[in-house]
């Protein structure tokens, strides 16, 4: 147990360093930009008739540092603001704190990707077990082929394809927007059903494009386990097919759990294309909006949140894995 704690604390320290490096990266990125957006914003505010002091205060609130300080002081100011969970103010949504914007956008992405992730994981893993056990029969090779093909199609092609087929060719499902704008949000039947109907295609896009990966990984993992001595021993002892498959699946799924847990971290940044195609108000769309409207505080904030979620889930995975797999604890 002590070993686990030491390992965990090492990971946490490493995580803090990574957050620090990422924050520094976005700081210097914005400062190094051609035309220096911070100074440009300051000059623009002065031109609009604000006094230099007012303009400086305004820029300070937006970016978290004062434009005319030496670079290292700006940097320390900025880090200090981030440590206090203050990510500055958005430029394109004037005056709205960045933290507020990203926290309203994040749930959309989480719901969208998590549903797709869980669905594709369950279906992909089951199909992978069948594909591995029946790998010499036509059923098995057909399943493997479906995995390879779907795995090879990029997410945006899949999204465009589904959108075209189900919203233009057959008008079965709505396109764009997360729910029907005429309905009032809340816990009423029509709103929830509209929410679900609008989410089907984005979720399906995510699920279909990650299904292949799960299938192929599970298949190769099962095949590796099939060669293990304990499976042969189980067969020799005359254990039933069902029991053996359970043994195999239990051992083969361990590496997949790691990947699954890690995918949860990559969730926030994993649906840029889908959100863009289906006009879904998640974090990916927010990041793209920030870049297209040159809203750098918002861009930095969104990118920071996307990265921090990966770092956190890495730490959590590492910890959980040592609980799930006793071989790691030594």
């Amino acid at each position, binding site marked *: 147990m002590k070993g686990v704690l030491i390992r965990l604390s090492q990971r946490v320290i490493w995580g803090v360093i990574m957050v620090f490096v990422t924050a520094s990266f976005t700081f210097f990125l914005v400062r190094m930009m051609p035309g220096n957006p911070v100074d440009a914003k300051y000059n623009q505010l002065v031109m609009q008739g604000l006094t230099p002091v007012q303009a400086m205060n305004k820029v300070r609130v937006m970016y978290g540092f004062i434009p005319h300080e030496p670079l290292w002081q700006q940097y320390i100011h900025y880090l200090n603001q981030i440590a206090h969970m203050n990510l500055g103010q958005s430029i394109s949504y004037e005056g709205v704190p960045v933290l507020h914007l990203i926290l309203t956008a994040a749930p959309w992405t989480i719901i969208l990707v998590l549903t797709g992730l869980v669905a594709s994981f369950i279906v992909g893993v089951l199909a992978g077990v069948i594909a591995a056990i029946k790998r010499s029969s036509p059923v098995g090779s057909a399943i493997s082929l479906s995995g390879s093909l779907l795995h090879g199609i*990029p997410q*945006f092609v899949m999204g465009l394809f589904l959108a075209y087929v189900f919203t233009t060719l057959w008008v079965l499902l709505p396109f764009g927007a997360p729910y029907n704008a005429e309905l009032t949000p809340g816990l009423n039947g029509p709103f929830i059903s509209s929410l679900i109907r609008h989410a089907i295609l984005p979720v399906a896009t995510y699920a279909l494009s990650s299904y292949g990966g799960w299938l192929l990984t599970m298949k190769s993992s099962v095949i590796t386990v099939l060669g293990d001595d304990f499976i042969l021993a189980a067969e020799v002892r005359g254990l039933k097919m069902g029991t053996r498959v359970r043994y195999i699946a239990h051992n083969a799924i361990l590496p997949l759990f790691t990947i699954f847990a890690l995918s949860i971290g990559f969730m926030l940044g994993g649906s840029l294309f889908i959100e863009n195609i289906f006009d879904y108000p998640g974090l990916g769309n927010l990041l793209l909006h920030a870049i297209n409207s040159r809203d750098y505080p918002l861009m930095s904030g969104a990118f920071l949140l996307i*990265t921090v979620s990966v770092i956190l889930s890495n730490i959590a995975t590492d910890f959980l894995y040592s609980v799930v797999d006793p071989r790691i604890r030594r």
Partner: protein
Amino acid sequence: MALPASKLDPPVNQLVVSKSNPSFWTSSWRIIVKKPGRVIGFIIILLYIFMGLFGPMLYPKQLPIDPNAIYAPISWKYPLGTDFEGTSNLALVITGARYVLFAAFMAAIFTVVFGTVLGLVSGYFLGFSDSVIMRITDFILTIPSFPLLVVLSTVWNFGQPVAMGFVLGITGWGGLARAVRSQTLSLRERGFIEAARSLGLSPMHILMREILPNVGSYIAMNLLLTITGSIYAEVGLFFLGVVPFQVNNWGVMLNLAVFSAGAMSSAQALPYLLSPMLALLILTLGIVLFLDAVDEMFNPRLKEV
């Protein structure tokens, strides 16, 4: 030592210690023609290489526009229809291939060079260099690469394919480095490496001539997979419209088709959307079919079969 038989070193003749007897090209050719799928994959890849090298030379620098044939349907004159200006979609796909393929090729080269060198050094020398390299690798693997590319597009000029390839390579070598390291770790304990070390061969020789050939198949497969991955990433960047359009390529076509031409709702603009997609999917198919041959070409353990 009571190791199970499978854990013992495989016989020396299964590892590439000396040069293999028939020349590399002859044996590769034999491996390719063994299965029809591989031949198809090989032909598709050759076709795309040809398209990337000579495609832009087949057409005038300014592609002809035809105001009478805007969104023309598929015909002999326009095998893939036309775009919003009446330019042939086939011409757009062919001339757009160079940027996409060249950038992806550069990305794969950068990825493979960084990943292999760092993986080999880290796995063979261990110690301080190993922990430094692995920390950097962890970092690269943690930062979500596509959002990073999107953010970098605000400062980096992606107009040159080399610049695009460089960034894709810089953000993408982590997985390969880690895999090469773990392979090197297991190889360096093998008998033939120990023999080489006790013969007093230089670490450079051991890494390049003894270890590298045994990791070769993995690297070659990775090269091809990186090419497809990079193509998706760059086409994706252009599709999202975060990178300024300087040259025509498949991603620009997709973006214009979806967000300007309204190909999602008007059937007549559909060929404009489908042509770059078709180009992408056929290339993917070719690479997937060819991968199988590459594995056999470079994997010394499959060679005996």
